[in-house]
């Protein structure tokens, strides 16, 4: 039995988000003056926002009904600082009220709140009676902080990588191609004539991934190779920048780099004359190509259709292009990633796929559009080690959700969710395995002899 005093000690030991030191925030804020802050805030408000922000601020009746939507709020025992409107109160309201005249210290705090205590998952937009898009307002805060040079270091470094390499992880041009060729060679052990066709103009599909795949999850490219070849897809992958669909610049508020990335991605597809882009199991990248980055460039919808892996697996399973040898037996549950469920309505297709490949699927509650965010998305996990505990303490509710299912595997068809859930599973000692759909699909599918 634990001593009560020990328990108190334990509770005290929960790290507070207030004590986190991030070099990007510290040094960035140290270089600011109030005049500079005011001029940037007013420039962003005047030139980059319009009636929408004004109406959102004027319409909010301060009812607090958005609170329950937020996993940070729920996980912090309903600490109002973590409610969606609570975060707006600490960021955009004073900026507007004081006409931009806020202190560097305020900006530092605002940047931390906007970048690490909100995943811009938009769950709160479903809880606000007026449908106020609070995540949009948080994005404006991030945009202001970006322009002021006050962005968490790791997130900024990722945006820098995007700017230089057009990918998220400083993967050099040759490393990318080399990795594809290496995976192709490895996969030939299994299917001798397997190909990962590079630069094949006129293929039906361009397959795009995010940089963590070539960087340290190359097995996923291997699996994609097996799935594509087995299903008989006429596909290609680019051997130029533009292969990475990810976009942390979207989350750091660097819209110009975001636009550059999306231009590069879509133009690569146009150059290769493919009919569609199929993307791996990533959520934020989908958001970036689907209704954020494309819009910044002037496209109402993606100029080349982008099919998320969930939908792609659904299509090939439904068409019988992939046959299942024997369904996966361990009990599984499914985490609905915000950006492709609340962002694209793929929840039923995800369930079709999971049921097609798994014997025993247990729903997590709440689910579909109402599922809790992983707390990793929205650029938060990309803010790096300093903020890991922010994600852990901020998402106890996710651990509870997973634990209650009793499943031994949680399927997460999104990279950020996947990494975030692995941290949560570990931190809360859930003992659950975290898998992508493709991990299981690869395991249970019939492969050509």
């Amino acid at each position, binding site marked *: 039995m634990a001593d009560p005093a020990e328990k108190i000690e334990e509770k005290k030991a929960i790290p507070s988000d207030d004590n986190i030191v991030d070099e*990007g925030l510290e*040094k960035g804020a140290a270089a600011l003056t109030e005049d500079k802050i005011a001029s940037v805030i007013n420039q962003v408000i005047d*030139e*980059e926002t319009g009636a929408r922000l004004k109406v959102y601020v004027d319409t909010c009746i301060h009812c607090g009904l958005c609170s329950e939507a937020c996993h940070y709020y729920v996980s912090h025992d309903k600490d109002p600082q973590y409610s969606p409107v609570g975060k707006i109160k600490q960021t955009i309201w004073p900026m507007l009220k004081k006409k931009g005249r806020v202190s560097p210290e305020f900006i530092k705090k605002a940047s931390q709140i906007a970048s690490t205590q909100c995943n811009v998952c938009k769950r709160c937009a479903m809880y606000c009676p007026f449908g106020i898009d609070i995540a949009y307002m948080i994005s404006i805060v991030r945009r202001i902080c*970006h*322009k002021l*040079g006050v962005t968490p*270091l*790791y997130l*900024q*470094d990722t945006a*820098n*990588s995007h*700017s*230089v*390499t*057009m990918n998220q992880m*400083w993967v*050099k*041009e*040759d490393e990318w*191609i*080399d990795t594809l*060729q290496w995976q192709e*060679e490895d996969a030939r052990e299994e299917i*001798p*004539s397997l*190909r990962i*066709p*590079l*630069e*094949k103009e*006129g293929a039906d599909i361009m397959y795009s991934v995010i940089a963590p795949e070539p960087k340290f999850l190359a097995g996923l490219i291997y699996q994609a190779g097996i799935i594509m070849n087995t299903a008989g897809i006429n596909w290609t992958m680019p*051997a*130029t*920048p533009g292969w990475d669909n990810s976009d942390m610049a979207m989350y750091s508020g*660097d819209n*110009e780099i975001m*636009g*550059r990335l999306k*231009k590069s991605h*879509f*133009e690569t597809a*146009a150059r290769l*004359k493919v*009919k569609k882009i199929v993307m791996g199991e990533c959520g934020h990248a989908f958001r970036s190509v689907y209704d954020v980055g494309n*819009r910044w*460039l*002037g*496209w*109402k*919808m993606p*100029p*080349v*259709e982008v099919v998320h892996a969930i939908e792609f697996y659904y299509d090939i399973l439904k068409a019988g292009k992939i046959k299942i040898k024997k369904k996966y037996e361990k009990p599984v549950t499914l985490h609905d990633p915000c950006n492709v469920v609340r962002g694209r309505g793929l929840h039923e297709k995800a369930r079709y796929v999971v049921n097609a490949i798994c014997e025993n699927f247990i729903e997590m509650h709440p689910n579909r559009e109402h599922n809790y965010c992983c707390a990793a998305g929205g650029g938060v996990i990309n803010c790096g080690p300093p903020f890991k505990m922010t994600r852990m303490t901020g998402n106890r509710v996710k651990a509870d959700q997973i634990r209650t299912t009793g499943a031994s595997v949680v399927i997460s068809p999104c990279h950020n969710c996947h990494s975030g859930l692995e941290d949560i599973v570990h931190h809360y000692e859930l003992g659950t395995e975290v898998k992508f759909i493709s991990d299981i699909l690869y395991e249970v599918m019939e492969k050509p002899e």
Partner: protein
Amino acid sequence: MNLTKNWDWETARKTIPFKEWNEKFEWVEEPYVSPDGEEIAAIVNTGEAEFNICANGNLWETTYEKIWHLRYLADNRLAAIVNEDGEWTVSVNDTPWENRFDYVWQPMFTDDGQHIAVAIQSGMEYGMALDDKPWETLYANMSNATLSPDGKQTAASVQIDDFNEGEIFKFEKGVFSAAVNGNAWDNKFVNVWQSAFNQDGSKVAAEVRLSRTEYAIAVNGINWGKTYDAVWEPLFNPKTGSVIAPVLRKGSWTLAEDGNILWSNRYKQVWHQTFSPDGSRIAAIVAPSFGKWTIAVDDKPWQATINDLIWGIVFSPDSRRIAATTKEGDNWSVIADGSVWTHTFDMVGTPVFSPDSKHIAVKVEKNKKHTITINDRVWSEEFDAIWDPVFNDTGDKVMLRTIENGTYCRRVMPVDELLR
């Protein structure tokens, strides 16, 4: 430069068996055909980790552990990136370059096929090689490789100073520059992206970033002195030598010339500015309003707009006509001289003008079948594959390179017959 003149424009039909290759090799990769249509070639696998190139049924003498990026040059030579004993190089018509590298990628060719440049990595250092001659100075990283139009020079963005991942403040001071023929500019920038050479190769312009939020165009390392919220790839005016680039200010795009605003209209987007061959006109792909795309010629946007995508803008040889491909939903088509063709397809190639500028031909795909469309008239014959059409120099004949029932077929057709 008249490459097509000496080609065979008389023989109506020549065929080369292709399907049979599948029986001879473990597998045959996607084929490429020579510009003159006389050859078809593909990378073939001849055994475990054994690759070769088969052209018109004949293998190269050398077998490689790996071959990729097979392409025909404009002069009908065949080039590929090959790997032997773990080292990479370029091989042209089965003759490898003397230099070997740890990696080779992004081959670029001149329009006459006489020069080849590639990106190279040796000992984890990066640079370019032009016609088997690598840069003397290599860099910690390199991207945006460019080859000058005359094929005599290369340029790329390079990393000048070392910095570690996470060193965001060092990064923001600027550690990148452009290197021309391996020699870096004196000035450093936060970012350097795509560069362009002028006609005589004496100048290089590049899109650069000066700080998190300030963008400019730099010419030979000196920036315009004016900054923008964003810029896209610059281009030299072939006639006057001025630099033209799309620039963004206060949420609107327009074209700027040598740092001064050139176009008075403001657009939601402007990119891919292109000069007419005589240098007198500029066309660009523009979005006059959100979600509406068209082409603007000298700042006058066409009336017809497209919702999804306009791509591959081409001027006619006489500088008077413009064509590009369009996409609306799943339907691809062509927009030419302000109007969209009536026929739509699952995919279309880049429009090709006849030398007399009268005709526009384009390869098209519908329901997995391929054919040719000239001036919005779809030819009735269908093929399993087709390459871009080629006009003869008088513009009355067109060469079609197709695959029909597994046989490669080179046809020469009178244009009139296709228009009938």
